[in-house]
């Protein structure tokens, strides 16, 4: 049985939000279904782009077997930082789980699949939202 530290957010992430108690329910369900032991969740700070609590959790490796976060979109927004998190987990022989998407990272192939999801979501977010409004007739004095 792997011992996974829970990791949840106290701020919106990539346009999403989930109440903290709901995030914990999802983590508990994920771990129960897969036979992992869920260690009490750490809650990331509310300040934008903070990863201070994630750093603390990473510092627990290898005393814990891995991290289970509510969503993959709670990984750092910066690609290099995000890659760094995954590399540190794998280098410690651990695993990283993203509960609401039901995905995990235990090797480079799984890491690439998670990263691909991230990139698609980021692309959707930055894409123009529909056609620009048609220009109306020019008005006198405008």
């Amino acid at each position, binding site marked *: 049985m792997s011992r996974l530290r829970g990791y949840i957010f106290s701020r919106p992430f990539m346009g999403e939000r989930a109440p*903290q108690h709901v995030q914990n329910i999802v983590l508990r369900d994920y771990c129960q279904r897969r036979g992992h032991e869920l260690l009490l969740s750490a809650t990331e700070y*509310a300040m934008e782009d903070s990863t*201070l609590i994630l750093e603390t959790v990473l510092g627990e490796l290898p005393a814990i077997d891995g991290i289970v976060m509510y969503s993959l979109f709670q990984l750092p927004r910066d690609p290099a930082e995000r890659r760094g998190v995954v590399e540190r987990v794998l280098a410690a022989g651990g695993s990283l789980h993203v509960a609401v998407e039901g995905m995990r990272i235990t090797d480079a192939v799984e890491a690439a699949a998670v990263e691909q999801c991230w990139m698609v979501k980021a692309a959707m977010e930055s894409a123009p939202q529909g056609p620009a409004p048609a220009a109306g007739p020019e008005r006198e004095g405008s």
Partner: protein
Amino acid sequence: MTAGPAPDALGEEWLARGYVIRDVADAAAHEWIVTATARVAAEALGSPAPAGLGASIAFMDAIHERVTPAALNDFRVRVIHGINALPELRPAYFAVARPYLESIVGNELAMQQRVNLSIQMPADASSLLPVHADTWSGDSPYEVVAWLPLVHCYGTKAMYILPPRHAAAFDADFARRAGASSESAFDAMRDQVEWLEVRSGQVLVFDQSLPHGNRVNDEAETRWSMNCRFKGVFTPYGDKKLGEFFEPITLRPATRRGMGYRLPGVR
């Protein structure tokens, strides 16, 4: 002459110190909370319920003689569920702090839906609350915490808070200080924090946006305390939302009227 609020000594004290400690406003409500919690705890252990306020306090003070650190969290969860299932709890909790909350926060209030319980046994490092401010985890700065000791809390059996005069410096250096281990974060403020002695029969109302926490309880007795957040019902919410975390408890007649008012139709 301008019509403004009268100077409010309690509010000024709260702003200056970050907290106030006062006798509970409703002694009967306080006694009910203490004895009901002890009764629920005794039921969880299969023990006879202690009779009366003094016996309840003594029973909880000595709970480490009956519960091991390994069994503490399950026990705590059972007591929390048991006490929160009693419909008298939230009205009684509000009653012990009501005038202080009305002075500091307002008289149209939202209250946290579940009252939290902390049990900290002597020498047990598993129940530590590292230095934190609730706002860092998404609580609105408009929230206050009403903290009710069920036993006498003193020394390391109590909690500490960083007063406002020191909190600004902490915030200015936040990334380094809050990102450090909880031990080094506390070491950096060890000489600046205030330990809050609060006796059973008193209530503490504190500013949860100030760094606070607890340490290993080096006293000979177990700490039992409850905490619950209150805020103005129409003030901004943080990550703890109305409905999922807070519930309005004191809407005034003009507000109830206003919420139901509709302009007359014109068609």
